[in-house]
């Protein structure tokens, strides 16, 4: 066991102000076990009284070496690890990884599978926004909303369990399609959710949008402008709250998003309140997309017919020798992917989630790298917290909507 080394303030000399050395300002640790840091995030705060002079985020407590581990697994097996990155958005992580593999292999995906992917990705977007909304309201002392949000999130998790057998770590989306077709009850459950949800979103808005206590804690807090967003690579709801209508589902459509009619909500203030409004409106748009995708969902296969990369359906194994051989080969040694590198990105609930995937001609990825939104967004913490109260930091973390599994990987 290595001895734990104490880090003296001298090593952080370049990060804190001169006043920290004369004792005029105070250095205070917030986290890593602080409930409002939404995970294991440590913030080193430099305080002048109760005002933040500086905020130094320290991440890595949830680092699991996913990228290294994936290099030792075949392409199919490595996918299981992607669920664990952004644990509020497992189908999204599966989707971006599968899109990268499909791009590398030049693999087709049947339209029915694409529609199922869109429905699941949008359901998770709602579930992620619900959790973000609930916990950030909880941090700002609005207790009841958290319980309502959890109630609706439970419906989404039930749908996830129905299609994949798992509530959270689904691994349902696979390279070339999805694992299997959705069960017969799927459509009615999703329809039920779609009909209930708009009214429920109105309820949440009724509790917060015009609530004076909430407005006091969120308006003019944690402001960031468009130029800073671009300089720091900030995407997603934070960028949209500054007035830029940028959404990868519109600008670089994937999985057939171009067929659906939805708008990108924007706000102009760039503060905590604007981000809240953007997220609420995004939930409404996601409900619209789910509704359309369910109505337009075509029939047919849910997996690509390319047997060199995609395992055959279970029903064929008993009757076809080739199917059995393919099944055996694909699940033991995997498939060989061509040499080359690709980058794919999707719009996750938090922003641009990208995968850099490189193949070397063998059955295992040579290098996988995840460009995660939380990692990029945590960088702006010093910028947006400066000059605010410690209590407001809590609201700002909630509004940036970080997931530490996503940041640390």
């Amino acid at each position, binding site marked *: 066991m290595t001895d734990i080394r104490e880090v003296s303030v001298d090593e952080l000399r370049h990060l804190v102000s001169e006043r920290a050395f004369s004792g005029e300002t105070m250095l205070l640790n917030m986290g890593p076990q602080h409930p409002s840091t939404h995970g294991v995030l440590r913030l080193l705060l430099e305080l002048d009284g109760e005002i933040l002079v500086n905020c130094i985020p320290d991440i890595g407590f949830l680092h699991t070496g996913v990228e290294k581990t994936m290099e030792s697994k075949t392409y199919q097996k490595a996918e299981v690890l992607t669920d664990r990155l952004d644990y509020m958005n497992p189908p999204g992580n599966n989707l971006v990884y599968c899109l990268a593999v499909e791009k590398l292999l*030049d693999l087709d995906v049947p339209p029915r599978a694409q529609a199922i992917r869109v429905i699941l990705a949008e359901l998770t977007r709602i579930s992620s926004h619900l959790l973000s909304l609930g916990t950030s309201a909880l941090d700002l002392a609005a207790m009841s909303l958290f319980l309502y949000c959890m109630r609706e999130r439970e419906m989404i998790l039930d749908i996830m369990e129905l299609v994949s057998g798992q509530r959270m770590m689904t691994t349902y989306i696979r390279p070339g399609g999805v694992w299997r077709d959705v069960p017969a009850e799927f459509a009615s459950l999703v329809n039920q959710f779609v009909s209930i949800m708009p009214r429920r979103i109105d309820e949440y808005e009724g509790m917060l949008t015009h609530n004076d206590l909430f407005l006091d804690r969120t308006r003019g807090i944690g402001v960031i402008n468009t130029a800073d967003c*671009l*300089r720091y690579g900030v995407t997603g709801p934070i960028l949209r709250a500054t007035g830029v209508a940028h959404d990868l589902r519109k600008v670089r459509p994937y999985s057939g998003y171009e067929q659906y009619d939805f708008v990108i909500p924007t706000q102009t203030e760039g503060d905590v309140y604007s981000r809240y409004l953007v997220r609420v409106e995004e939930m409404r748009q996601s409900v619209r997309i789910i509704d359309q995708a369910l109505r337009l969902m075509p029939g047919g296969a849910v997996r690509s017919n390319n047997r060199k990369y995609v395992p055959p359906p279970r029903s064929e194994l008993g009757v076809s020798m080739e199917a059995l051989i393919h099944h055996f080969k694909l699940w033991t040694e995997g498939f060989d992917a061509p040499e080359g590198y*690709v*980058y794919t990105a999707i719009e996750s609930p938090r922003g641009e989630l990208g995968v850099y995937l*490189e193949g070397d001609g063998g059955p295992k990825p040579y290098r996988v790298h995840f460009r995660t939104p939380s990692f990029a967004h945590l960088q702006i913490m010093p910028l947006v917290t400066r000059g605010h109260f410690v209590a407001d930091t809590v609201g700002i973390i909630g509004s940036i909507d970080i997931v530490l599994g996503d940041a640390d*990987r």
Partner: protein
Amino acid sequence: MAISAEYQPVIAAFQERFNAEVREFRGEVTLILSSEHNVEAAQALRDEFGFEMLIDITAVDYWLKSPERIHLNYQFYSISQNRLLRLRFPLQGNAPRVRTVETIYPGANWYEREVFDMFGITFEGHSDLRRIVLPYEWEGHPLRKDYPLGYEEVQFTFNADEIRVRKPHPRE
């Protein structure tokens, strides 16, 4: 797939100025440059060609595969033109050094810290080059290909005692 015509101005400029090599795979454009030009190339992309965002920095280790062992990989994105471009810089040796692009894209700060942490590339002029996800006292750079995945070392009769000393748990 041919390279889309909208990339031609940037490709032509980079070939002339930095002697860049062009690669295309699945419609993605990669420019391979010598690492001494990285700051000038980033500056040109931001100021002349409208790539406002540096989306990602990462690296790939080609241990025993290429004399230029580590390739540094920058992913640029232009929101206004909806265009992606990748720059790649092959680096010589086991302890490569390159200049930081933090002055041009401040968001590069954490990405360069991560690459330093995981690959051991030193970024000259970086304002805060500390390890970012691993503990400060960690030894080695895990995403290099010569770094073991972390299985337990196998004890043979000739080195059993030596390995036992290093083992974290079964020590009496």
